[in-house]
């Protein structure tokens, strides 16, 4: 048990980074980390030594995230507070106003795509690990990753179309 707890401690920074990127609200992110740790500690004796502790902790966090999101779905007001999204799944412009552009772009992604993108690109999980954590097929990981990247690319890297079009029309 002692070694296992120490292992949990080692992974806290990564869990915190992931939670912060997943949720627009830093307090909600901290609560998610905290709940995840509490759950993981409660279930530590169920963890199989030799298996991937990091992936297991992200699995616990994913389950907690899904539970929380479900709980907030009946309360649109709380949902927006929780992850910057309205019930329709799209972030409201009001919620996004105070976010940095990369945070805002992330919040525009559906949760399922956001999770895949962050596990792969920020936390460096393999496609197979990501599929296991989220309990989805590897093919689904790939398609969500593709859509998420293309969205961010469009929003963050392409020059806004409005700056170009009026000039063309003048010609």
């Amino acid at each position, binding site marked *: *048990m*002692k070694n296992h*707890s*120490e292992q*949990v*401690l080692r992974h*806290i*920074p*990564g869990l*915190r*980074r992931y939670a*912060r*990127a997943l949720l627009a609200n830093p307090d909600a992110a*901290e*609560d998610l*980390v*905290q*709940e995840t*740790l*509490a*759950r993981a*500690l*409660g*279930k530590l004796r169920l963890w199989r030594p030799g298996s991937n502790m990091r992936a297991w902790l992200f699995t616990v966090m994913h389950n907690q995230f899904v539970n929380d999101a479900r709980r907030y779905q009946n309360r649109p007001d709380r949902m927006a507070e929780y992850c910057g999204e309205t019930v329709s799944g799209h972030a409201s412009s009001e919620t996004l106003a105070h976010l*940095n552009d*990369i*945070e805002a772009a992330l919040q525009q992604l559906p949760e399922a795509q956001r999770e895949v993108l*962050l596990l*792969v*690109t*920020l936390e460096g999980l*393999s*496609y197979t690990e990501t599929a296991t954590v989220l309990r989805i097929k590897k093919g689904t990981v*790939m398609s969500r*990753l*593709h859509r998420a*990247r293309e969205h*961010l*690319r469009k929003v*963050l*890297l392409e020059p806004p179309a409005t700056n170009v079009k009026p000039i063309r029309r003048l010609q």
Partner: protein
Amino acid sequence: MNPEHVSSEELHAYVDNQLDAQRRIEVEAWLATHGDAARQVDDYRALQQRLHRHFDPVLAEHPGTSLPKSRAVFGLNHLLRPAMAILLMLASGLLGWSLKSADDKNVEAVAYTDLVQPAAFAHQVYSSDPNYPVEIPAIRRASLNQWVSKRMHTDLQAPDLAASGFRLIGGRLLPSTNRMAAQFMYEDTQGERLTIYIRRIAADSNSSFEYMDQDNLHIFYWINNFVGYAVVGVQPATRLIAVANAVNRLAR
């Protein structure tokens, strides 16, 4: 795999270093003659760098370090950030585990059968009862305290948890595994209930806060001078820690 054709999936796998060495070289060669795909790869990498630049500083945050050192295990303060509390819990847990002897293991077993299990069960039975969740309601608080104290042969008061956002509903006495137990029930503004279960424990141990998840319930429990306490609820562990703290402060 065809070196002349690189799929969209392979482009991602290339960016994420998930291709084998041979295919990696082939994809690199292919990219040299396919400008659009090369730009796509560059963009994906740029996005990845931006994500890391923006979120990596979080890795260096140590919410646990600002904790005053003089605070003992029971000094968990509800004003502390939740992660600090968890770190502290973990730290105390580590110490506990490393010093564990046969006696301690016995205490652990006793705490589970005589405290955690009956507390969780009593919570499930009574907190969901729409009509008679408690035997003596909060308006007769004085009688409740008096009755419980008398039957438990110790001075017991239902703690005031208003500061943690919980209103007392009332309480009851219960037969536990081999002793009497008291259950106080509270409700938050959302109507979610929480119970505090208190009983004598035949093990002299001043244990640190322990945590357990059982059937969707969060349970914080500890033993102090032969008395066991369990705080049980579905609320986030953060809130339960605050309650456990308040209860422990009042009980000492």
